[in-house]
């Protein structure tokens, strides 16, 4: 026979468990926007050879080194893992920081970061490509969705950069460079740091407006040392050729200025 007090004891335990349930399942509540964070955008502006010529698709360009005539139909690449260095030397890391910069889609050339703590920042760090972890961690979403057609199906990994187009100098009349590779000797991943006060002022993040970091990208740099597309008009896998082109491209990205 169970006594009333035994029931009471069990009920108390049950209530305690129920109470635990209600508190333990509480979802993380996004904090109300306060005046402690602001927004920063990194703008990638595309130029051909120098600042005088804007780079766009479906336009004929002459390459300054190879003299090839190039008419781009596709120019897109991954920038990831944005970080900002605070004046005290510590880094703020942008979460889920993956961007597919596509010249065809102007809005994609502006990389927006929100919830950046207000304050002064001295450096930007960014990665060309997609870190090795995300290359091997299964099906991803957002900018890394496989439906973006920037993933090698038969040799797992993201295509970090696609440059495709038409050229009379190519034996086939066209060119198609898919550059990537996240591991080993043929890795084309590279992380660059931009020190703001080298050419501009430090970045000041405030809650009242969006600060901007302007970067200049020169697609012509892809062929700085790779040679004419008369010799090579296609790269579709990681390798030394992809590495040369990717490195020249990334090393050609310039920091222009900070606009606070």
């Amino acid at each position, binding site marked *: 026979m*169970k006594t009333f007090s*035994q*029931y009471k004891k*069990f*009920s108390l*335990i*049950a209530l305690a*468990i*129920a109470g*635990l*349930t209600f508190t*333990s*399942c509480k979802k993380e509540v996004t904090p109300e926007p306060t005046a402690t964070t602001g927004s920063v955008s990194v703008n990638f502006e595309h130029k051909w050879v120098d600042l005088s010529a804007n780079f766009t698709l479906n336009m004929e360009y002459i390459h300054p080194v190879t003299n090839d005539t190039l008419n781009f139909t596709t120019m897109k690449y991954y920038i990831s893992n944005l970080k900002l260095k605070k004046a005290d030397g510590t880094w703020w890391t942008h979460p889920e920081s993956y961007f597919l910069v596509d010249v065809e889609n102007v809005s994609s050339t502006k990389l927006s970061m929100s919830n950046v703590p207000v304050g002064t920042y001295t450096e930007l760090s960014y990665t060309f490509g997609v870190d090795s972890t995300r*290359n*091997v*961690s*299964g*099906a*991803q*979403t957002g900018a890394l*969705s*496989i*439906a973006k*057609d920037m*993933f090698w*199906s*038969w*040799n*797992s990994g993201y295509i970090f950069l696609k440059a495709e187009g038409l050229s009379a100098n190519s034996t086939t009349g066209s060119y198609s460079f898919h550059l990537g590779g996240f591991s*080993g000797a*043929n890795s084309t991943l590279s992380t660059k740091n931009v020190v703001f006060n080298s050419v501009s002022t430090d970045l000041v993040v405030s809650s009242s407006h969006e600060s901007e970091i302007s970067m200049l990208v020169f697609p012509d740099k892809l062929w700085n040392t790779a040679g004419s597309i008369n010799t090579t008009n296609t790269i579709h*896998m*990681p*390798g030394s050729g992809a590495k040369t082109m990717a490195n020249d491209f990334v090393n050609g990205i310039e920091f222009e200025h900070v606009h606070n």
Partner: protein
Amino acid sequence: MVFSLISTPIQTFQFKKLFSGMRFFCSMILVFVLFSCKKDNEIVPVDDWGFKKPSYFPEPHYTFENNAQTKLRFSLGRDLFYDSILSLDNSISCASCHAQTHGFSDHNVAFSAGVNGTLGVRNSPALSNLAWYPTFMWDGGIVNIETFSVGPITNPLEMHESILNVVGKLNANSAYRSKFKLAYDVDSITDQKMLQALAQYMAMLISDDSKYDKFKKGTYTFTADENAGYFLFQAKCASCHTEPLFTDFTYRNNGIDATFTDLGRGMITQNAADNGKFKVPSLRNVQLTYPYMHDGRYFTLSQVLDHYATGIQSSSTLDPSLASGIPLTADEKLKIIAFLRTLTDYTFMANPDLSEPIH
């Protein structure tokens, strides 16, 4: 692995036993506690269903991280595996070349027909125990079970379809939309969820009930020939075809060619030292998954053993362990084949939960 798709967690609770005073009351609270925290339609594993590692298997490579296992997701993955919607002209499904009755390999052909009957260039591998695989394909070019299916879906010689189109076709299908909603709580089907659902099914292709497995579990005694074959196998084959998965997942040139028309692993690594190397295939269900080798050149196990005994061709990347072949007498070959036949898992190949769904 036999499990039921019909019973729900609630049904498996034994109400009669629970329906007695306090125990019932406390149990109901326990049920409430278990169910109140569930996320993403996660089914609390109160019944017998789910991924289970056989005790003598190593730890699996795939752990359902970010893709928690549920019956709904598994069942959705099975629908997709058997649906030709994944191919360009809706003509072939995964199961077209990975038939359950053939240990999830093709129907004993060297090369499989893709859309428009285009033949592939490598033999369709048998699928089993994929959750333990660190890499996929003969050349190991694919490194995650979730991105595995992108290969065959997009290969022009196979399903020849784009991921974007597959997602479009699925979203245009109201039955799939509601299944994805139930399984993943998404209003719009994404490639990520499609690939994760397929991974849910593929990770459950567990072959662990062959005579060999029953021997390991102590419920079967090998015949004299099987036993002799097992010892021979351990001495002469197991260094590459490592138990209990019967592969060590390395890439090796097993001396079938002196020059290479297919570079195999070398195509992936771009390293000449890997040319002519292919992944050591698992031997599970090997009796039924002929023809053998990456190009399906041998139709019988005898031919395969003859090759290792006397047919090794030398080349710069030949596996050192095969430099002088594997000496085997005719009797030893028969015994090894007797053992290899113990790897046939009829439970796996008849498991209704892995079979084509009937809608």
